[in-house]
């Protein structure tokens, strides 16, 4: 299973949820499979997906899912400590770990070598860390989001990409329609 298939399998579970999605192909895949105003697509800024997700979760009541990648988390490693020490029970971080920088040509990451992101997340202090395979991602995300406990899921899958369209939606429109959804969930 490759990341695109994992993303597609998540749709029934996340279509109405507040989702912050990682830069590059992950956002483009989500956009292609199920463009929703509840999705915030990152069009730039490598590494900050989980930070945006945490900031959002800490400031309002709606459930938040951040769909991040192994390369992105490695870019912003400190985020795992910040997440662990600022518990937001409405926050789920899904790290789709395909062991590669997918958007830039599948160069290998250290997460595909000796480094275990799940072990790092635990060492940083997060209590609920789940490691799963791509096939189980949707079930694990559903469970985590319904659990009312902050959870980090590291979903292992294979490296590889499919052709996807570029997102041409105006960034301010993406943000404003997303904020409307946030307000609706907090009424």
């Amino acid at each position: 299973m490759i990341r695109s298939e994992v993303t597609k399998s998540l749709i029934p579970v996340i279509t109405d949820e507040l989702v912050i999605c990682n830069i590059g192909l992950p956002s483009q895949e989500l956009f292609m499979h199920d463009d929703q105003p509840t999705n915030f697509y990152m069009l730039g800024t490598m590494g900050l997906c989980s930070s945006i997700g945490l900031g959002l979760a800490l400031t309002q009541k709606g459930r938040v899912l951040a769909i991040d990648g192994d390369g992105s988390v490695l870019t912003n490693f400190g985020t795992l400590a910040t997440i662990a020490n600022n518990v937001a029970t409405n926050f789920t971080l899904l790290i789709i770990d395909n062991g590669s920088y997918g958007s830039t040509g599948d160069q290998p990451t250290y997460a595909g070598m000796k480094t275990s992101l799940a072990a790092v997340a635990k060492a940083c202090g997060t209590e609920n860390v789940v490691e799963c395979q791509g096939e189980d991602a949707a079930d694990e995300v559903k469970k985590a989001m319904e659990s009312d406990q902050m959870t980090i899921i590291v979903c292992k899958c294979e490296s590889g990409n499919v052709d996807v369209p570029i997102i041409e939606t105006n960034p301010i429109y993406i943000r404003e329609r997303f904020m409307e959804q946030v307000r609706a969930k907090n009424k």
Partner: protein
Amino acid sequence: MSVNDKIVEDLVKNGVGFVTTVPCKQLAGVIEVVEKNNQIQHVPANHEAEGMGLCAGAYMGGTRGCIIMQNTAIGVTLNSLATLIQYYQIPLPMLISYRGEVGERVACQVEMAVHTKALLAEMNIPTYHFHDGSQLDEFDGILNHTFMCKKPTAILTDASFWRTAS
């Protein structure tokens, strides 16, 4: 009222409810007051770019954010400022200790000080340099301006400001 209390009072007055910080010696006092204030959620960041991500998320959650950091951080946040804060029009006041100005004792701090204003100008970021304690009166208006125009703004506070304000 101390300078640090006045800064935090102005933040609260302007609806700032989320502050992220990366420490600097000059900012230790204000960070302490932020931490104690019960109207502000304080989330220390490990890196200033991470802090900008947190503030972007908080803003979308309906809470105005502010980042408190050192000017050396300008060097490591240019991409986050351009592609997140500016691209999505997220207002972000940046209260910045302006290290490397007159009175500085660490020579290396001067190396980033000489680039600070040029980088901010290149990024079209409205920049305010507080050199004297009396300039703190402008802070309230700058915050209001920041949220009106939905831009990042830089408030540079140098050693002379902190000496004359406290």
